[in-house]
């Protein structure tokens, strides 16, 4: 077997890609609708928000942490931005909303960051707590209600498209939102940070062994703090784009997305224990979830079965990677036993 093929078989990404391929052909075979231009564009468009959330979640999980507060964080920063601008009768373009939402996101992320990095509290507990606080603050202090209308600049951004794809047979059209550029830009930045900066390598190093990272000279606290700030920023961007694309702000309908996002990241081969995983895998895992959510309907599967299928997918996906981990640790144990002989 050529080396490159052998390397591919050892990578989780290959398998998830094959699963996506099989699923796609299955849907295509049953409906003839999968590989149509408009369906592909629909899926890409549906990837934007989960994809952004997944990038942030991925970085946190690689560092050995976890963040379950990002939907609440995004909801709060976006609601605060939108309602403030709406009340001020803001009529400008998209830049001010982006700056505001991202700034609030950074601030909220810093709350997580301080609690986790400076006080060394467990990330799961911290983000469970802040998730409740962010939500409570939004609903209680800000008195968040559904906003059927959002500032014009935002809805224009949400509905403007790069191009429109048309299905020649059915005549259905789908537009590719401009917002897809945000996903691409964030993806490129995340890639550069993770693989080309010592900060990014530090994230992997901390996930591998935090004590070693400290001893090697990484500023572990600073890295962790900035990481959660970064997640706050990316998540708020995702939330803002979602609101723009829906052209209305429904403050609570992002809540609860965290499990699906984390599942996608883990499905993509990111070790939940930290230290291992790739952006490619993270995107593939998210894509799989999005495809299942979007396309089961093409297979004629009633929507209420969606949850069932997603659950199965998560169990099988994580089960396979867990058994891989188990096998490799068994192997090393065997090696250890033999060595001690």
């Amino acid at each position, binding site marked *: 077997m050529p080396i490159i093929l052998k390397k591919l078989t050892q990578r989780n990404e290959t398998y998830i890609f094959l699963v996506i391929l099989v699923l796609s052909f299955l849907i295509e075979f049953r409906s003839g609708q999968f590989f149509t231009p408009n369906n592909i564009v629909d899926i890409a468009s549906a990837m934007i928000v989960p994809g952004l959330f997944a990038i942030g979640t991925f970085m946190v999980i690689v560092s050995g942490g976890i963040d379950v507060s990002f939907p609440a964080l995004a909801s709060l920063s976006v609601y605060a931005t939108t309602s403030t601008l709406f009340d001020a009768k803001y009529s400008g373009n998209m830049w001010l909303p982006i700056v505001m939402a991202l700034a609030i996101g950074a601030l909220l992320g810093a709350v997580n960051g301080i609690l986790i990095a400076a006080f060394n509290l467990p990330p799961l507990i911290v983000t469970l707590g802040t998730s409740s606080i962010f939500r409570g603050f939004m609903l209680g202090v800000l008195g968040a209600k559904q906003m059927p209308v959002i500032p014009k600049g935002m809805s224009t951004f949400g509905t403007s498209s790069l191009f429109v794809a048309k299905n020649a047979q059915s005549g259905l059209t789908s537009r590719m939102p401009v917002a897809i550029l945000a996903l691409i830009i964030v993806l490129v930045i995340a890639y550069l940070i993770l693989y080309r900066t010592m900060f990014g*390598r530090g994230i*992997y190093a901390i996930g591998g062994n935090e004590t070693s990272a400290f*001893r*090697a000279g990484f500023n572990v606290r600073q890295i962790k703090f900035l990481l959660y700030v970064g997640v706050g920023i990316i998540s708020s961007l995702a939330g803002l784009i979602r609101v723009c694309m829906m052209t209305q702000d429904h403050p609570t309908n992002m809540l609860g997305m965290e499990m699906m996002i984390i599942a996608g990241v883990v499905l993509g081969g990111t070790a939940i224990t930290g230290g291992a995983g790739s952006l490619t895998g993270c995107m593939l895992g998210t894509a799989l979830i999005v495809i299942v959510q979007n396309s089961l309907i093409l297979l004629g599967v009633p929507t209420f079965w969606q949850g069932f299928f997603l659950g199965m997918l998560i169990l099988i996906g994580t089960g396979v990677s867990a058994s891989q981990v188990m096998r490799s640790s068994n192997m090393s144990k065997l090696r250890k036993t*033999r*060595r*001690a*002989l």
Partner: protein
Amino acid sequence: MAQSVLKVVDIKKSFAGVDALKGVSLEIAPGEIHCLAGENGCGKSTLIKIISGVYEPNSGQIEFSGNIHKKITPIEAIMNGIQVIYQDFSIFPNMSVVENLAFNSELANKHKLVNKKRMRKIAKDAIAKINFEVDLDAKVGTLSVADKQLVAICRALMFDAKLIIMDEPTTALTRKEVNALFKIILDLKAQGIATLFVSHKLDEVFEISERFTIIRSGEKIITGNTAELDNKKFTYYMTGREFEDIAFTPKNIDTAPVLEVKNLGLTGFFENISFALHKGEILGLTGLLGSGRTELALSLFGIRKADSGTIEIDGKEIRLDSVQTAMENGIGYVPEDRLSEGLFLPRGIGDNIIISEVDSLANGIGVLDRTKKKNEIARWVKELTIATPNPDNACSTLSGGNQQRIVLAKWLARDLKILILNGPTMGVDIGSKYDIHMILQKLADEGMSLIIISDDIPEIMTTCSKILIMRDGRITATLNPKETNVQELSKYMM
């Protein structure tokens, strides 16, 4: 003596009112191989952490190449050429060899961006220093323990190290890997780099070090030349006790064997194994890496079912296919990795002792009888002299020797016929090792049959009444320890 690389004078350190170090001094010359020895908890690790700047001493001074410091930071220690190789090697298992080697210097030089070419060059230079050959792109987690250690050593050498401190470096290594490590230490010596070698294994101390320092309960007992040291003195300095190694002579051996194994085989691991174990006997089983001895032990305990041959207990053939069958037939097993396989570390000492006989402590409807449980625990704590103020304390609070005693207690609480011990004294200090040997001999005298699997040839020689040597899955010799010697043993092993 030339200007010393490191000199610490009268270091005192206490934690929460407990004195960990009560005025320890130590001096190391350039290129010297110095061994720091002492039992677990004697203050060795505290001293190392003070030298490397992790802890600040309460009093005393530290001198690097003649410069006096009252206190130092980890960075200052590194700048002065002090490098510590920790027991866990401080590596990143999820990252490549290149990154593991290059991170320290990249960070020290405050590089913000990853430069693959530069990092690869750093890594190449680092491994060239000790002629270490390794795939630079391999993830470190996939390397063997010995290679991981070499990665750590290479990394330490990059910073103009003058003194390398190795904390129990041989714990997880095979004999061959230890030899390779010692060769590297000698190479370093030739380059003028001193090594402070922390160990409590006396054969290593004799083999590698020129001078030694022994610490006991936070006090320096002695510093001297290793040439003037012998086994007996070493043990005495370490423990403050004198031991007489009593060679085991089995009493009242029955003619009928308790366990008889005939032509036992497990494809790929061992074949054609036949031996008999009598009541009151201690059988030693030894061999090199991959000789199949651990697999044999696991088969005898029903974990890996043998696929050919027979096993008889008291003359009756049994089908050993599960741990439950093994236990029903009175066989017990003490694993080599007692921490992960033998104990519930976070649970109480008492709970760990009674776990294997928990059935017999329950009343009619299966509820644990508390008084019975308490009496049983008290009995074993006393019988095995486990040093604990309270049997409810977690097992993790005990020293290695005491933990091993609990693993023993756990099995002895059942009335066993046969006890198999894999590396019974691995990682245990001398005092506890002696105590464990005495316990094993006493058990045999009381009529139990034991099988000891060990690397430790002196241990096999003194505690066993019969030695089986395995090589490549076969028994190559059955020897009587009284009529053989170390050379003959190793001849059959190689």
